[in-house]
């Protein structure tokens, strides 16, 4: 299937190459929310990330298909001092969109800006550690070294999200190194980007890139409206389609729906294991019991979730890393086979008993808990419904409660007033270092039991140690081994009960050329400078 998809995509690329991409035209697509910030160093949400991608230039870019770093504004790089230092050789003759030249001073300025604590940049997290922040040193007009406070494996990958800004005009939207600059922004309505006349990249025939004259990003919260506009030809592509829209577009001859296969994103539930949570002690005992969590995991029919909720566009998930993450996926992991009998047996051994269709713990308490999820997300609500029926087979009563997002975040992040939560995780960075906040027991986003002063369990202590070790290990094989072990522990202990990896579904109009969609987000426009529209579309 993947081979066929690759052939089809290659075919599309080749056809485009022989026809020769035409310059000009306006690409249109939608995002679902206003970008929280147009400052490329303050990106914390997907819309802001798209704004950064359109106008930002970086030293290195991760190819969304191969998932490997490719040189951009840096011609080459060299990692030195056991991963503590990286030296970049920059491209010469590159200018910002306002015509000012790009030099190593701009890179050094960018790093200094990121390190400024007053900026509160989450992009800078990868460049800081307890022993300090990364420092840039200008070695020449086109050579710059970055020194990290400790060994930082795969440090070049960090620079994919670091937009180089002009030292002379750091916040000027017309002084950018990306393929487009922001021409117009109408809040709540659209962002209009125009071609950067000074963009450095050229195509294979020596013609300047980008091909497109402009990109219009509409802010469209209503996915139905987005689909309607796409069908009318008012939008050229849709990223992150839901399975129902995908089904509808697939039935249309020029729908352009493409299933890119398993994405990096997953859906999961977890139980509240916070010791100070306002829950009865007997419920805390259930939720901290490995057997209870594993029994729940064994009772859930992941295959039905993939088949019914995602119409087959999802895969049962065993652990935190999906097969789409080519470097870090642990293929030995398998989702637990669905077995209510095995789950009941496990619960019996753990002191639970099933009497009169009701599961009770050793203290005689009927097992009943609530699952919260965000209101308005149809797939999650229906997933919760399936889980409700699956667990009723064990005599467990599940109450499903949908909450508006702020209330949900308040409960899972502040008040701990919840029992179980069903949410998804969107992975935008492949490296495990980007997940330190999730796995370290001391972190405030260690979701099942955040902010621990010392690890509550031996297995969490082991995860802490392994994550620390891999973050400072320059040897790739040893890093992989450490993170594999983390994945194995997570599956064995089930602090997160992973349900499915969702597929990456996109719709791309046949008028759009040179698309190389990849499962990393944004999947269809990551190589925006290469995209072109055919004559008819323009």
């Amino acid at each position, binding site marked *: 299937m993947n081979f066929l998809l690759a052939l089809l995509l290659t075919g599309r690329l080749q056809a485009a190459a022989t026809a020769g991409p035409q310059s000009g035209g306006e690409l249109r697509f939608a995002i679902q929310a206003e970008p929280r910030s147009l400052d490329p160093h303050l990106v914390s949400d997907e819309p802001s990330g798209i704004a950064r991608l359109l106008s930002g230039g970086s030293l290195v870019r991760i190819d969304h298909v191969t998932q490997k770093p490719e040189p951009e504004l840096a011609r080459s790089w060299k990692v030195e001092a056991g991963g503590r230092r990286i030296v970049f050789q920059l491209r010469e003759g590159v200018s910002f969109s306002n015509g000012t030249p790009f030099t190593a001073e701009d890179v050094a300025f960018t790093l200094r800006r990121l390190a400024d604590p007053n900026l509160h940049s989450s992009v800078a997290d990868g460049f800081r550690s307890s022993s300090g922040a990364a420092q840039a040193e200008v070695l020449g007009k086109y050579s710059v070294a970055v020194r990290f406070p400790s060994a930082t494996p795969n440090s070049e990958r960090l620079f994919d999200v670091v937009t180089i800004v002009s030292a002379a005009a750091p916040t000027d939207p017309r002084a950018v190194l990306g393929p487009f600059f922001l021409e117009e922004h109408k809040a709540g309505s659209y962002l209009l980007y125009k071609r950067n006349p000074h963009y450095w990249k050229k195509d294979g025939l020596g013609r300047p890139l980008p091909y497109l004259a402009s990109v219009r990003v509409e802010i469209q919260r209503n996915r*139905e409206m987005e689909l*309607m506009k796409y069908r009318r030809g008012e939008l050229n592509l849709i990223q992150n389609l*839901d399975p*129902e*829209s995908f089904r*509808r577009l697939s039935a249309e001859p020029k729908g352009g729906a493409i299933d890119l296969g398993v994405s990096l994103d997953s859906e999961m539930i977890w139980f509240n294991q916070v010791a100070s949570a306002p829950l009865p002690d007997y419920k805390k005992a259930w939720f901290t019991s490995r057997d209870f969590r594993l029994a729940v995991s064994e009772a859930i*029919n992941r295959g*039905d979730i993939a088949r*019914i909720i995602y119409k087959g566009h999802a895969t049962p998930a065993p652990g935190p890393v999906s097969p789409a993450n080519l470097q870090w996926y642990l293929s030995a992991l398998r989702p637990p086979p669905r077995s209510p009998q095995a789950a009941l047996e496990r619960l019996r051994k753990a002191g639970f008993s099933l009497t009169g269709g009701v599961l009770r713990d050793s203290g005689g308490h009927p097992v*009943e*808990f*609530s699952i*919260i999820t965000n*209101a*308005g*997300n*149809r797939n999650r*609500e*229906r997933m*919760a*419904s*399936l889980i*409700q*029926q699956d667990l009723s087979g064990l005599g467990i009563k599940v*109450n*499903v*409660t*949908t*909450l*508006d997002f702020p*209330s949900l975040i*308040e409960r899972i992040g502040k008040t701990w*007033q*919840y*029992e179980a939560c069903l949410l998804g995780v969107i992975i935008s960075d492949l490296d495990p270092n980007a997940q330190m906040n999730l796995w370290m027991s001391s972190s405030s986003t260690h979701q099942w039991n955040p902010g621990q002063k010392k690890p509550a369990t031996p297995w969490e202590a082991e995860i802490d140690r392994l994550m620390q070790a891999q973050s400072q290990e320059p040897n790739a094989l040893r890093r992989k081994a450490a993170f594999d072990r983390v994945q194995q522990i997570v599956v064995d202990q089930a602090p997160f009960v992973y349900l499915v990896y969702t597929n990456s579904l996109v719709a791309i109009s046949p008028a759009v050329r040179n698309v190389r969609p990849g499962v990393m987000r944004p999947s269809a426009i990551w190589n925006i400078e290469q995209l072109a529209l055919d004559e008819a579309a323009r």
Partner: protein
Amino acid sequence: MTQPLQRLALAFLGLMALGAAGADWLAPAPYDLQNREALGEPPSSKAPLGTDELGRDRLSRLLHGSRVSLVLAPTAALISVFAAAALGALGGCLGGRWERAVASAADLTLSLPGLFLLLALRSVLPLNASAWLSLAATFTLLGLLGWAAPARVVLASIRRLRDSDFVLAARARGVAEWRILAVHLVPNVRPILAAQFLVAVPAFILAEANLGMLGLGVPESMPSWGNLLRELEGQPEALTRPLERPELFAPALLLIAAVLCFQALAGARTESST
């Protein structure tokens, strides 16, 4: 408004109420039972309205879902009309600053963002609260928020009646104020209250439907007209070719029919009271 239409509306509402009350016996299957091998099945003798996307029997869900709308919406309407009657009568009878206070409170209530209050209520309810408790709380709040509009009508009516000849005559004869209220004013505003009740019921039915569409109505897997309507979400082909899958429109048709019936009754009541 003709009598036969009113009778027809009453008969239809009675039929729906009977169906909702007898859902436990009439429903072909439990409303939450998922048959995962029969997803989105068309109508058949076994499932007269087919099955939904999780394989649940649509007719059973529709019958059980009618309970929510037909029991809780009138209850909420009763709450709002009683509150409106009490506050309207208070302001109307006492007049002066009391009247101004009730009018201002009504204005204030009308300006409150009801949806946010409902969201706030939902966020403070215990997570393991039963579906019925959560619904009762939601509809009670809807009822409490809904008093302002009918209260204005009651206030205006009482004000008009307060200065009418028969009330002035009663007052001149030394009849006590409470007796004037009980004997002269309340019987005169009763038809208005009945009309307000009948206007409020469909408004609350629609409010539940709107909350259901937002995913903030009845919790899974209990059905209601609101969350049953969500099945139409993302199916525009069903809207453009409604005859292909008419069973999908059953909750919408029932909702429209119920709203029209209540409005027909309200219209008749308003005409008779004027």
